[in-house]
Structure formats: C-alpha cells, structure tokens
C-alpha cells in the first residue's frame, strides 16, 4: 500500500512560506520522500499503517492551501510509467521486508 500526498500551498507572505516549509518537513519526518515538487509518497506495510499516517497528516495540514491524499495498492504503484524527458525511467523499487545494504 502506498500513500501519495499532493499539495498546492500559498507562498505569498512570510507566514505562508513558513507554514509550507513546515508541512514539507513534517511529511519528511513521517517517512515521506519527494517524488516531484509537491508530490510526496510513502510505502505503508498494511492498511492499518496507512490509516496511521493518513491521520498524522490530517493533524499537520496547514491552514491555507490544498492538500490531497491518495492511497494506492502495490500493484497500482507498479503500473506507474515514468518519463524523464522522452526517456522512460524505471520506477524506484519499493521497500522489501528484508533489505541488505
């Protein structure tokens, strides 16, 4: 299960910029990584775990701006096609239960 967060946050005043930076930082502290500017994703081992992270995001959403949360299955994630320019790029692999560095 993957959680995607898309957002458009206003950055007109200093306060808004601060709130936007805070939101971005909070996402990263929750284990999200940047896929594109304002598109963040995270792998969750189970539906329950996805619920936890969704709830956490709700708690730090900034006052203004638009935030969307989407959850998709591993299978759907695998169907993403990435283009970098005109060249197709492979999708970064998701985490496995056992990882060797």
């Amino acid at each position: 299960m993957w959680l995607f967060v898309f957002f458009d946050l206003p950055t007109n005043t200093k306060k808004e910029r601060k709130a936007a930076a805070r939101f971005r930082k909070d996402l990263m502290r929750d284990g999200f990584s940047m896929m594109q500017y304002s598109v963040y994703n995270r792998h969750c081992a189970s539906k329950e775990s996805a619920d936890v992270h969704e709830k956490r995001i709700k708690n730090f959403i900034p006052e203004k701006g638009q935030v969307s949360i989407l959850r998709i299955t591993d299978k759907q994630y695998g169907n993403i096609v990435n283009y970098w320019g005109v060249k197709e790029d492979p999708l970064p692999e998701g985490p496995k239960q056992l990882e060797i560095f």
Partner: protein
Amino acid sequence: MLKRTIYFSSPGFLSVKDMQLVFDPKNGSDVKNVPVEDIGFMILENQQITVSSPLIEELMNHNVAVVFCDSRHHPQSMLLNMEGHHQQTEIYRQQITASEPLKKNLWKQTVAAKIANQAKLLEKIGADPNPLPHLASRVKSGDVDNREGMAARVYWQRIFGQSFLRDRYGKWPNALLNYGYIVLRAAVARALTGSGLFPSFGIFHHNRYNAFCLADDIMEPYRPFVDMAVWNVCEKYPDVTEMHKEIKAEMLQVLSVDVGMKKQTRPLMVAITHTTASLAACFTRDKKNIEYPILI
C-alpha cells in the same frame, strides 16, 4: 505490524535526519533513507560502519533490535532499551515474584509447544515424527522427567543424519544453527522488553552467566523454525560448509516466515510479540496460557 529487517554488510555511515535512518555508503553510491519507525530488526555486520548517537536514541525510542557482529561476522552484542513499556516496573515485580508453581506451569507449556513444533517439522521434511507427538502431550509440570531431552535425541538425528551432534562448536551445520538462534534470540529479547519484561530472569534457564535467560526460555518453541531454515539451506546448498552473504540473508528471512497462531497465520516477528504479551499477562495472572506458534 510487520516491521522491516535491515542488514548492513558494507562500510558506511549511519545517522538520523528528520527521524529517518540515513545510510551513507561513503563510496559515491546513493544515500538510502529508511523510516526508523518501520524498522524492527537491524544487523550491523561490517566493522567499518559508524553509528551516530542520535540514531541510537531514535532506534531505542522505537524499540528496534540492533545487533552488532564481531570481526568474524558473527552476531555478538545487541542494544537493549532500559525502558520498553509504560508499566515496566510493575511487570518486573510480578515477574520476579512469580511463584514456583506458576513458573513450572509456564515451562511445561513451553516444552510441550517446542516438542509439538519439532514433530511438525519432522513431518514436514518427510521424517517419522513418532514418538514426539506422544512426548508433547505428556509433559509434566516443570518438565521434571526431561521430555525435552528425550525429544531432542531423536529429533536432531532425523533432521541432519545419524552422525549429527548438536554442539555449539561442532561441525556444519552447527554454525548455521548458532547464527539463526542468535538472530532469533535478539528478536525475542526485543519483544520481551517491548512487553515490559526483564530478559534476565527466566522461568527455567537460570545460568548466572547468561543475561538473557527469559529470552532463552521463550525462544524454545521458535527454534524449530530456525531448524527448518537451516534444513532448507542445507538442501539448497549441499556443498557449502561456510557462511556467505546469501546464506545469511536466507537465515534472516526466518523472521518473516508464516507461523500459525490461534487459527490465524502471522509473520514470525509479529507472533513473538503476541507470545511475550501473553507471557506478561500470565505473570500478572490475567491469563493462564502463553500463546505459542504452530509450525505450518
């Protein structure tokens, strides 16, 4: 919840940033990020890995089992959280003042579960499980007549052949068994501290030189899962008599193997936390039985 197992075998620097574990291999390859809260078990095998203090703090906050290996790449030490559970002191007290009959009863359940799993394993690999199921059903309180030993005598020879002797410094695959048991022991010790139990005071093991008596007790019914993994490795690599990376990776998979718990199937690492939680409930007299896994 199933947590991730991470195994570091190449040199690098481990630190923490934004509550994420950061692995910097220092050789120009990509820096890797892993959320600390997703990790359950971590092995550091290379002698050229540096770990930062804030990372250790973060790992302990999330009760991650961190195992360090010695220069021979064998698991040697682990980190243990001094405060793993909010009711820790209360549960410690119950555990230490547990009555002798209670401990004997718990040990009886443990031995019965272990022998039952040994029998299941023999059945699974096509060997004759008798008389193990019979032995399992007649374990006495405190296992006074040592059914555990009786079962072991037939068990080992049926798995690894007539000439096999289970001995810490014995011939292959003893080294493989040692490796698997240490991994398992660390996972059990982690679960014990997570349930507020103190791993040094066992229900049966009481060696004064052993700091993990309770872990050694509770892991008994889980040992056949390691034995199964070792058996699989021996079948898959019949000519190998030394550890290498693939074999170690195979052994670490034990932590996520499916086990039967109360009509449900769970990954082994999750099952251990159920076992230790039920053990804590036994000490506080909220429960009578420890939940042990069944080999499937």
